[in-house]
Every structure is written in structure tokens, then in C-alpha cells.
């Protein structure tokens, strides 16, 4: 028994598998076609304690940690879910930690009412699956450059308790369905130091989904371009003045690690499907798996997955122990992304023509996984950051 196979985590794995088989796999093709995950799935995830799995019980979460999240992602993918499904169902993973942190800072300062305001309106409903949260950072001409963002929030000269937001965001996951977008806005001067995070309710006048974006993969997960025109937001929704970049950076490690888990778990699912296919598919009178070239391919896929999983899980455990894992998270993401790219390609290749067909699961993973080296920090940005952290 290790940290990943305690009786409770074994039970969690079973629950996640059951949840996925009961509520997701049969309907996923339809959601892929519709470009949406139904709101009811968020409620079911809330009831199962998965929507708030790794958040404190004090704010309505389940009290687990990143090890539990890792098990959840592994099992969901293993049972036939997809990276897009996970991105769309658990967008709060990148949107809500900033709100939880600010609520805690307010509590530490004795501002109980202001803390309760965030907790009651923007945290507990998300943990229960009654509300969908989203994170808006990237801008139409910005990409990975957070420090250059131009969406601005300014005080209303006539009402100091209100901020007025103008600007645009793009590639925003779950924003079409979201109830709020934790938005990176400029409240101060130029550069990273002038950036704050602001909770913008999507029902606020002036907030519009400018465009629904059509994607190569992650098709069940909705993605939007957003426009903000004189959107009035209570100042209470500001998650610390000019603390935005620090807050984003603090949570990058977790985002990268969950993407790393998505990478190797997707690869594992593709390997499982490919082994089954190679056993059942006969060519020239013999099962495909009887060919040495195929068996060696499968071993190479297995080798890369095992290494990526072992390294990533090790970093996850270090994070759960409270260690600083910034550099290791970068390495885990790169390793798992490379593994996933390699494995999905080989999976489609071994499936042959069948793997190129829309109704084969590996075809979907092939398209879905392309985002992993772009989102949550592009490969090139990761490498550059690693070189700085390592002092090269």
C-alpha cells in the first residue's frame, strides 16, 4: 500500500469509475457534437464530492488534496472520459483557488463579512456543482504574455465601491456556460505588477460572449471569446489589488501537474485500447499482437507512460507534503506531454484505418491531446522558465 492505494483512495477510485461509467461515457459523443457539458453533470459531481475534491471542507469542499485529484483524473480517463470533459467539468480548478485564497486573507484580517461574501456567492455554490466558474487571462493579441494584458478595471468616479471593466479575453474554457469568470484585469500601471484578479459575474450588463470558438479537440468543453463593455462589478469582487500575477503564478504548479496527469492518463487509456485492438485484430491470419514490431511498439508506449506517471506522482506527493515544486512541475508537464504526443500517435498508427475514423476513441484522444503542450503554459515557455529556475 502506498499513498495512492490507501483504503479511502481505493474507494475514491471505485466511486470515480462508477461515476464515469454511469454518467459520462454513453453521453460523451453527444456532448462532443454539441460542444457543451450539461449543467446537471456539475450537480452530480457536486453530490459525489468531486467538484470540490481538493478544497477545504471549511468552504464546502471535500477536504482532499492533489493526490486525490490525481486519482480522479487517472480513473476518469481510464473509464472512458476525456481530457476535454475533465477541463470543462473541473474548470474551477483554475478559477476558484484565487477566490478561496482571498476569502482566507480577508478572514485573517478579521473582515468576516467580506470573506463570507466571497464564500457564499462564489465558492460554496461551485463546490456543490450549482455554479460554473471560469478563469479569464489570455487576450486576443496576448497569448502567454500575462504581464502585457490590456483589459482594464477602473474605479467609478461616482461610486468608489464599483469597478468598471473594459476589454476582451479569448480561449476562455467554460466561459459560455460560466456563472462567473475570475478575470485578470489591469488595475495599476504597466507590467505584471499592475495586474489584479476580479470575479466578474457573467450576468452583469456589458458582459458578452463575443464568439463561441470551434476547436480541433476538447470539443465537449466550451471555449469563448469574451467582451467587456463598461461592466460594473462590486469592488468586493477584487481578489487583492495588484496581486493578480502572484496569485496566478502560485497556482500554476497545480495546473501544470493536473495537465501532466491528464497527459499520462490519456496515454495509458490509449495504450489499453491499443493492446485490446492488437489482440483482437487479425492480419494475414494472425493477431496483430503476434508481430514483434507491434509488441515492441507497445513496450515503448508502456515505458514512456510508466516513467511519466512515476515522476509526476512523485511531484504530486511532494506538493501534497507542502514542498515547493515549481521546477519539477514544469518537468512533469513536459515529460507527460511528450509521452502523450508519442503514445496517441502510435495508438492511431496501430489502429490503422480504424484509428482515423471518428468513432474510434483513440482518434478523439489524438485530437484532444494536442492542446496539452499549448495550454497551461506552452512547451517553449515552460522550457524557458525552467532554464531561468535552473540558472542556466
Amino acid at each position, binding site marked *: 500500500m502506498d499513498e495512492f492505494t490507501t483504503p479511502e483512495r481505493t*474507494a475514491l477510485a*471505485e*466511486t470515480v469509475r*462508477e461515476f464515469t461509467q*454511469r454518467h459520462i461515457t454513453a453521453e460523451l459523443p453527444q456532448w462532443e457534437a454539441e460542444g457543451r457539458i450539461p449543467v446537471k453533470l456539475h450537480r452530480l459531481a457536486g453530490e*459525489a464530492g*468531486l467538484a470540490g*475534491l481538493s478544497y477545504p471542507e471549511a468552504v464546502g469542499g*471535500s477536504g482532499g488534496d492533489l493526490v486525490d485529484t490525481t486519482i480522479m483524473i487517472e480513473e476518469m480517463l481510464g473509464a472512458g472520459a476525456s481530457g476535454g470533459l475533465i477541463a470543462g467539468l473541473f474548470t474551477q480548478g483554475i478559477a476558484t483557488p484565487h477566490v478561496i485564497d482571498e476569502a482566507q486573507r480577508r478572514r485573517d484580517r478579521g473582515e468576516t463579512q467580506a470573506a463570507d461574501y466571497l464564500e457564499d456567492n462564489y465558492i460554496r455554490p461551485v463546490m456543490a456543482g450549482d455554479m460554473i466558474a471560469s478563469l479569464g487571462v489570455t487576450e486576443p493579441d496576448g497569448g502567454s504574455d500575462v504581464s502585457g494584458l490590456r483589459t482594464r478595471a477602473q474605479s467609478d468616479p461616482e461610486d468608489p465601491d464599483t469597478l468598471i471593466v473594459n476589454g476582451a479575453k479569448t480561449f476562455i474554457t467554460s466561459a459560455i456556460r460560466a456563472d462567473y469568470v475570475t478575470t485578470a484585469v489591469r488595475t495599476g500601471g504597466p507590467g505584471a505588477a499592475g495586474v489584479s484578479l476580479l470575479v466578474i459575474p457573467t450576468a452583469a450588463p456589458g458582459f458578452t460572449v463575443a464568439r463561441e470558438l470551434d476547436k480541433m479537440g476538447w470539443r465537449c468543453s466550451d471555449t469563448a471569446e469574451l467582451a467587456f463593455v463598461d461592466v460594473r462589478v462590486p469592488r468586493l469582487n477584487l481578489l487583492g489589488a495588484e496581486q493578480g500575477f502572484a496569485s496566478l503564478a502560485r497556482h500554476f504548479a497545480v495546473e501544470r501537474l493536473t495537465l501532466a496527469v491528464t497527459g499520462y492518463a490519456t496515454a495509458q487509456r490509449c495504450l489499453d485500447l491499443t493492446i485490446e485492438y492488437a489482440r483482437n485484430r487479425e492480419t494475414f491470419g494472425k493477431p496483430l499482437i503476434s508481430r514483434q514490431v507491434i509488441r515492441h511498439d507497445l513496450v515503448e508506449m508502456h515505458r514512456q507512460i510508466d516513467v511519466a506517471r512515476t515522476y509526476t506522482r512523485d511531484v504530486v506527493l511532494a506538493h501534497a507534503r507542502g514542498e515547493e515544486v515549481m521546477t519539477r512541475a514544469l518537468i512533469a508537464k513536459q515529460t507527460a506531454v511528450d509521452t502523450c504526443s508519442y503514445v496517441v500517435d502510435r495508438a492511431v498508427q496501430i489502429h490503422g484505418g480504424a484509428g482515423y475514423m471518428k468513432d474510434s476513441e483513440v482518434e478523439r484522444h489524438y485530437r484532444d491531446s494536442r492542446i496539452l503542450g499549448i495550454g497551461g503554459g506552452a512547451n517553449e515557455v515552460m522550457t524557458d522558465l525552467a532554464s531561468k529556475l535552473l540558472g542556466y
Partner: protein
Amino acid sequence: MKIAVCVKQVPDTWAEKKLSDSDKTLDRESVDGVMNELDEYAVEEALLIKEANDGEVVAVSMGPDKAEETVRKALQMGADSGIHIVDDSLAGSDSVATAKTLAATLKDQGYDLIIFGSESTDARMSVVPAMVAELLDLPQLTFASKVSVDGDAVTIQRQADYGYDEVQASTPAVISVVEKINEPRYPSFKGIMAAKKKPLESVAAPSGEPVGLASARTEILEFAERPPKAAGVKIEDDGTGGVKVADFLAEQKLI
């Protein structure tokens, strides 16, 4: 309302099952144990009755050390407490000894309902619920596809070939449920964590009754491995394929 739900740990349905050479009983150590699937329906029914009527649900299991996992699973699903009857002397017990042990443990504890799954996927005898009812001198409402409780009256729909019979009794009573009576819940993460703190008592076999392999009234004289799958029969369809398939199935006594 105080409800006991009896759960059994059985080998994983998909696992290769083996009898041990020494005593010709099921080798439970070498395979993963899971809660008997029909018992999941029993737990769900107990929880539904509790939720509608208030009260408590006690999960009871008889089995070796690792059967505790199955009691724990019932607690994760929502049962309030658990009793694990674990005793070396119980190894190899037949259905009569099992029923006597369960009855002695459940007797005089104030249970209004004692709920079972209608059979286990390993032994498939389907007799323990009826035996326990007989030993405790309680009415038996077996093979229920629907249960409704109204005060101290319990009504079930008893599954039958021709449809169902409606059977009623007053509490206390013994119920066994069939598949599809409900959709068993999976434990929520909170349920999983809460189960760690719920009382789970290990008790020894009640004394006085002969139990275990030596007292079993049935005995396995010999057993053999299932023969490897033989080549099938190929039927060429020359227009009479359907008839030939039907003849084959009739020959195998399948239709």
C-alpha cells in the same frame, strides 16, 4: 426504525475462482473481494427506507478478516454502523451454520427490518434469508422487487414467473431483494471519509452452535477445473441456418 442489512464479501465477479485443494472450499485469499452485487441493492434499499422513515442502518457481515472491507463499503454508502462476525471456527460454514450465526447475532437487538440480497454470486443458494427468518420466527418477505413501509406494515412485490405477488407482514420482518429494485448509490467522497469514523465492531461467533466445515451438512466430494473452451459448431447457412441454430440450442437444452 432500526434496520440490519446483511452483506457478504464475494470474489470479484470477473476474477478466476478456485477451490482450494485442502478443504474443497472457495479460495478467498487469492482473489479480490467485493461486496456481493445483490447486497448493494439491499444496502440501497435499507438506506432509502431509513431516509424516508428516520432510524439507523447497521451493516452485518460474517467472513474472514478482509470481509471488513465490505462492511466498510456499506458504511461508505451511508450505513451508520457495522458488525463484522469474524472467527476462525466459522471457516467452511454451510448455509445452515451461516444462518444460525447471523440469527444469533441479530436476535433480540431490536431490529425492525433485516434486509438481504436474494442470493450471493459465489454460492447462489438463495436460502439464508429464509433460514434466518425461520430461526428468528419472523415473517419472510423474500425476492422483493419493491418494498413499501407504512408504520409497522411492510408490503413487498414478490417477483414471480407470472408477474408479482403482493405480500404483506408486520415488523419485525426479514426481506430479501432482487436485482434492479433500485440503483445502488456509489459512495461520495464525503461518505468515504465519514466511514473512517463510524463504529465497526468485530465480534466472535456466538457460542453454542456447531459451525464451520466439520459441521457442514453438505460436502464437496470432488471438483474439476472447467475444461478449456472447445471449438464451436459452424453452421453454413444454405437457407436452413435458422432451423439448424434452433436445433442446436434445443440439443443443448437452452431453448
